[in-house]
């Protein structure tokens, strides 16, 4: 898969949807391609995060440590990004992510991600928008949950 395809893939991710092609190309070029075999672990819960992964093909499982061992909480597919929380704010990984099938990812190191945001504020704005959107969604759900409890 070449840079051009990676850029196409990035474009389909909401976080990057409105960002210039040339910037995405730069992001792709400076990121490393990383393949995982089914069963390989991308990162463990509570590790320090150094990069975010963009799934290009294959599926990954998100698992959270429960009292009786890891509990699968979600499945991710292509064009999704995982691990971005740990690189945006310095918190340990909130879950373990494991490759469910053979997996192709683009690994975006934390410092590159930040450098790109500093160089191209438009990208920062875009991310702010996406995060605000997510916050709004979360708040909405919280409200639903709270009203359901009552």
């Amino acid at each position, binding site marked *: 898969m070449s840079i051009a395809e990676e850029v196409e893939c990035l474009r389909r991710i909401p976080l990057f949807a409105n960002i210039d092609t*040339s*910037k995405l190309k730069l992001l792709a070029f400076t990121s*490393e391609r990383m*393949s995982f075999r089914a069963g390989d672990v991308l990162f463990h819960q509570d590790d320090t995060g150094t990069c975010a992964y963009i799934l290009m093909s294959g599926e990954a499982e998100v698992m959270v440590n429960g009292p009786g061992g890891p509990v699968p909480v979600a499945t991710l597919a292509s064009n999704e990004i995982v691990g971005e929380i740990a690189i945006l704010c310095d918190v340990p990984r909130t879950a373990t992510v494991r490759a469910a099938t053979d997996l192709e990812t683009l690994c975006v190191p934390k410092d590159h991600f930040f450098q790109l945001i500093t160089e191209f504020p438009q990208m920062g704005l875009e991310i702010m928008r996406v995060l605000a959107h997510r916050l709004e969604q979360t708040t909405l759900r919280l409200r639903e949950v709270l009203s359901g409890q009552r």
Partner: protein
Amino acid sequence: MESSIFQFILRHSTRHQVVLTIMTLASFPFLYASLDLPKRIVNEAIAGKKLPETFLGFHLDQVSYLWVLCGLFLILVVLNGWFKYIINTYKGRLGERMLRRLRYELYVRVLRFPLPRFRKMSPGEIIPMITAEVEPLGGFIGDAIAIPVFQGGTLLVYIAFIFIQDPVLGAAAVSLYPFQGWLIPRLQRKVNQLGKQRVRAMRQIADRIGETVSGIQEVHTHDTAAWHLADLSHRLGDVYDIRFEIYQRKFFVKFLNNFINQLTPFFFYAIGGYLVIHGRLSFGALVAVLAAYKDLAAPWKELLDWYQQKEDNRIKYEQVVEQFHVPDLLEDRLLSAEEDLPLRGTLTFQNVGFGEDGGSRVLEAVSCDIPLDGHTAVIGIGSGRDELAQLAARVLLPSSGQIRLGETDYTSLPESVTGRRATYVGATPYLFSASLYDNLVYGLRHRPMRAGEHEEPPERRRRRLSESMLSGNATYDTRADWIDYAAAGCDGPADLKARILKVLTLVNLDDDVYAMGLSRTVDPEQRPEVASAVMEAREAMRAMLEENPDLGRLVERFDPARFTMNSSVAENLLFGTPVGPIFQPDALASNPYVLHVLDKVGLTDRFLEIGHKVAETMVELFAGLPPGHEFFERFSFIGFAELPEYQALLARTAKDGLGALRPAERTRLMSLPFRLIPARHRLGLITPEGEKRLLEARRVFAEDLPADLRGAVAFFEPDTYNAAASIQDNILFGKLVYGQAQVHSKVGRILADLVNRLHLRDIVMEVGLDHPVGVAGSRLSAAQRQKAALARAMLKRPDVLILSEATSGLDTASQNKVHSAIMEDRKGCGLIWVLHRAALARAFDRVIVLKDGRIAEQGRFEDLSKPGTVLHEMMAAE
């Protein structure tokens, strides 16, 4: 050491000086004859007066007589020249021997300096003294006696000659010499003082430069370059002033001399001319006297120059030697004696004090017993701990009090005992600029043990040996095997290597040395066993990678028939490792042979196109970034500074096409594709068709390679060891695949398993021992240096091992590991350990607690660790 240069000369070279003087005197008659002969040629043979009837029993006519005299003259010229040649050679040799002796003696003194001396004297001062400052002395020593004798003799001969011709003229010729002899030393005295000042000033400059080099980090940290520049400029200014004044005075002396010398001919022309006119002196005699006087000026000038030189060298010698006259120099016996005495029993400190002259005492009234079969911990607050350790190792000598070993005075033991039976390791040990192996066995090299192999012919060796003796130098053979295997408990080199590996494991340096070994290259001709073991490992690696596809995915092996996606295009073309600069990746685009190969397979245009695309992509990706952004360094094929040029180039090719490029621009574009690594850069520029063409180019490159370039590349051949590649690369024989998670650590593990399985680890570590540690060990980390120094000390198996915070640079995990390994290894043997944490003293038999240079308490740990003790207090504070 002799305090004046003449004492030094007479003490060590009287015989030679006498021989020189005899040779010089022997040359006089010939010199005199060569002066007399011209007069006879002019007066007798040419003028035809007083023609002798017979000459040596032969009857000769005037012309034959002229031939004979001229023949004689020619013989004399040759003889005089020969004398000069012999004497000069002899002088030169004598001077060099004496210089060698002087330097050697100074160096011996450096070795005998008491350690505190080095706090006052820097290498910057010592080095120029032994090397540059004494250099002119060599030239002078040969001349010291010979010149005054020779030139003085010559002068006397000339003067005598003139006196014989005419006493009055003779008196006239030398009339001003007494005046000169009185005046010149007076003028010289001031020059001498200035000379002394100059030497001192130069030494300080050397010292400052040395300090700047050592403290260069601080200079940059604190932005003090300007201050240092000003300081140096000021000092250079001082030297300039001194030198300028020296010149003025020196040349004034010269001017005065010349003037006085020119006065004398005045007397000759006046008085001599008068005498000739009145017939009281023959014309021939006046000519000869004038000729002699012309020659007189030369030796006289030489004598005066010699005097100036003598003064100059006298001062140089005295100024150097006085620096090496240290009152408490170590006795020579301590360094040279060959004694052996096991260090057993108890080391007893009685009222020991240590401090610098006039300074405060770091240790005061220390009295303690240290049993040499047990483990003693030294801890404390304030100064003196390290000094106590160094005193116990006899590296330092006490300023007051006594250290006894049973009945023996410990401080009077020679280093052949203390330097072999005891070993001290400090916190910042020194490593010498050599291989790690040489540094580890350093502590076993006390004296030559076995004759070594020599390439030199024995004749030359004998000559060099006798030359060493003539200069009073050491006659030890550096090529001999100096390693004392028995001291390390080994019976030979192979056994020693095995023991070194054990010790390395003990100090936790084994993994580091293994890693060093993996990244080193080995010459398969010199070490065929390593090469064949590595080839075996390569084969095993190949089998493993082929059997297990999960592992096979991690490494892309080199295959002559396949394009390596994880290698750069340059590497794919060469299919080998460049040796030397010719085929380095950056040089390929301008290498005529490489261009020829590309042409031949028809790749040149394709390369240009790819280069053009790469340039386009780079400009597109990186043009928006600010200058100096780290992405340029890490990812871009083009530096920020070059961007505008590439932009212009691209704009022009867009208009006129690639054909319009200038040669330099073509090279520039051609250089880009070589750096492409298809699997990493993913630009999609190397198509399957391109791969095929590049493989063709690879084949042509190897086939057509001219003989003179054959040495510039070591090809990858599946069945041959690659001498230019590291052991690791030789085993892998391929590239790590980009984009495989944790590929480095995974392959590292596979490699380590493989190496262990094939019992290769020891071989790799042995290769790692060849790793050069750099100047003062700078190519090792601080922790590695400490571990290496520990290993060096343990290898010696000393009776008592003295450690002073010798593991402070290690991380806690390896510190714990190394501590317990050392304690275990030293069970039942002497161990004195200055600890940086009081709690660590728990494992020791005895504890000595220092407070501000005095012993606060000593005894068993259990007895001391009660509330109210200093030890308890210290542990509470940790």
